[in-house]
């Protein structure tokens, strides 16, 4: 596949992630902050997000598995995950966290467990999508091309 085709595929894929609600404008901001002096900025920040999220989701599983669930702790963990997903533009993960926090407030264990499942699912999906996006970028760079700038219509 020639570079121009790869670039079009990347642009279309990125736009689809926005239209389907996986990523919001905050992700575009991260892309705009990437330049020749910081060529791996987006990958670095998203990698931090992956690392944080893996730990937070593990911690949430453990805390919700306790006989006496500490809902304050659950809320604090979900708040962190909401914050980091919001910071990188992972909109669906953020929205799932917002719903999760409502059930923490109600101290509804069954609903919290369902929310955890939902958050896990949304996280897995966006992680796969982002890894695909980064692979497409690597293919372009590997073929000697450059990553096209995304537009505000994102």
């Amino acid at each position: 596949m020639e570079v121009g085709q790869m670039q079009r595929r990347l642009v279309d894929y990125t736009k689809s992630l926005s239209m389907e609600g996986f990523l919001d404008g905050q992700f575009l901001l991260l892309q705009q902050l990437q330049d020749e002096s910081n060529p791996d900025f987006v990958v670095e920040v998203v990698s931090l997000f992956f690392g944080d999220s893996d730990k937070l989701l593990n911690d949430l599983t453990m805390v919700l598995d306790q006989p006496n669930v500490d809902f304050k702790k659950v809320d604090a963990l979900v708040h962190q995950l909401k914050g980091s997903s919001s910071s990188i533009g992972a909109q669906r993960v953020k929205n799932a966290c917002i719903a999760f926090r409502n059930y923490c407030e109600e101290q509804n264990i069954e609903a919290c467990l369902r929310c955890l499942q939902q958050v896990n699912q949304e996280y897995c999906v966006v992680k796969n999508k982002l890894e695909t996006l980064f692979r497409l970028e690597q293919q372009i760079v590997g073929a000697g091309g450059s990553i096209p700038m995304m537009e505000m219509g994102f």
Partner: protein
Amino acid sequence: MAQSNKEKSTKITALVVDDDMINRTIHHRLLDNLGIENEVVGNGKEAVDVHCSGKNFDLILMDKDMPIMNGIEATRKLREMGIRSLIAGVSSRSTEQEIQEFMEAGLDDYLEKPLTMSKLVTIIRKIDSNG
């Protein structure tokens, strides 16, 4: 206009105070992108310590919820020390009462996360106009 603003902006210094590494990384880069020299620390105590070491900044971006010393305590402490920097509180928790408590600690402004370029530019214009 962009070039003259950038030249002017290079004289502004900032301190990012946030316990979350993702936010520190993004805010550091946002400020870099605006030509603002900046440092990052991980909690309120480190923010106080860096001022005790003799450093001073035009702008402090202060997260609210941090371990060891939170943003409210750190803001209060910095004001008691006579620090007159523009301190902008940054948080994603936003009940009115919490914002009020944060403001009363000595903030000049409050910004909701996530920070964007336009939110930062609004704050930086305040520094420029106070000049």
